[in-house]
């Protein structure tokens, strides 16, 4: 969701040059009309102020100006060209989200999730891997925490005591996500790329590459996570440590991304 106090910012790799919005990752640019250039030139201001200024300068009603600015902001955000910067703490945002979700509940809808694009340095394999891990660390930690909570709940329902298994499953889930995306990034050495998160989705956006390289990039993520998972399971079998094998299972589950159920599998199969 985009609130009046939020600010817009150009995503890493996106610039405004000579009246065009250019994206270094896609290697493409789009012309801006007068109102679009007006909005992007005032991105230091909160969205509410931009709406007021747009209404004044273009002689629009407040409602029309707000609809224009929000439609434009959402369109650019959907393409991961613009990030939405919130000026309030996360706790306050969570409360706002819950309120809006409650209002939308009768319609069976949830508040739209804004995309966030983060830079990845793909100059070397090591930098690509490291910068992607750094970019995804917050999300991976959240996913690990969520998975731990769900596993702990199921564990309690099953009557099992202890937090070792839930923590192991949570850790494996978080590490798997980080490893998956970092492996995609590492296979994109020399290709302009960025990490994008939108709602539950996490993906690496990159410049067009040859079909064969695209297949390799698509396979790298699931294979890396699956490989580490299999090593953990085999190590657990060798030393008879079920905890190691349990930690490996969420990582091996990334193998499902190799099938057409996942986007990576569809790309790898040339679909």
């Amino acid at each position, binding site marked *: 969701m985009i609130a009046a106090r939020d600010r817009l910012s150009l995503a890493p790799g996106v610039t405004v040059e000579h009246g065009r919005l250019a994206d270094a990752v*896609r290697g493409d640019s789009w012309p801006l009309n007068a109102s679009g250039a007006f909005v992007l030139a005032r991105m230091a201001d909160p969205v509410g102020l931009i709406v007021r200024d747009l209404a004044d300068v273009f002689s629009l009603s407040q409602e029309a100006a707000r609809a224009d600015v929000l439609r434009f902001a959402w369109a650019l955000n959907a393409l991961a060209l613009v990030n939405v910067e919130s000026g309030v703490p996360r706790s306050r945002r969570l409360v706002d989200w819950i309120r809006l979700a409650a209002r939308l509940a009768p319609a069976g809808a949830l508040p739209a999730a804004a995309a966030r694009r983060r830079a990845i340095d793909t100059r070397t394999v090591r930098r690509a891997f490291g910068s992607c891990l750094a970019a995804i660390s917050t999300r991976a930690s959240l996913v690990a925490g969520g998975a731990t909570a769900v596993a702990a709940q199921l564990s309690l329902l099953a009557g099992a005591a202890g937090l070792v298994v839930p923590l192991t499953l949570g850790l494996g889930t978080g590490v798997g996500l980080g490893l998956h995306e970092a492996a*995609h990034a590492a296979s994109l050495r020399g290709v302009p790329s960025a990490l*994008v998160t939108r709602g539950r989705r996490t*993906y*690496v*956006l*990159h*410049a*067009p*590459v040859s079909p064969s390289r*695209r297949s390799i*990039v*698509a396979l*790298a*993520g*699931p294979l890396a996570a*699956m490989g580490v*998972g*299999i090593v953990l*399971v*085999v190590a*657990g*079998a060798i030393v*008879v*440590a*079920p905890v190691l*094998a*349990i930690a*490996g*299972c969420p990582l*091996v*589950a990334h*193998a*499902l*991304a*190799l*099938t*057409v*159920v996942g*986007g*990576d*599998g*569809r*790309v*790898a*199969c*040339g*679909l």
Partner: protein
Amino acid sequence: MRALKAFLLGALAVGALAYALLTTLALTAQAGGHTIDVTVGPLVFVSVGEERDAIVTTFGPGVVVLALVGGLANLAAARLVRHRAAGRVDPVD
């Protein structure tokens, strides 16, 4: 070639996942001193049993059959998706 790729990726995915889950199940049973037999009819997936004083884990052909079924399912799904696929999208992974 595309069909072979879909089959191999599906078989690898399902085979790896089945192996990991069955190994974890067997290890947990072994650590707890239990014996288990995971079978479907005559098809044995994994068996944890006692032989003399030792606990022995044996994988049956079920894992391979499961992998083959996964490969065929992925091949069928790939054909279905190909009929529905259309439009140009951003390259994302």
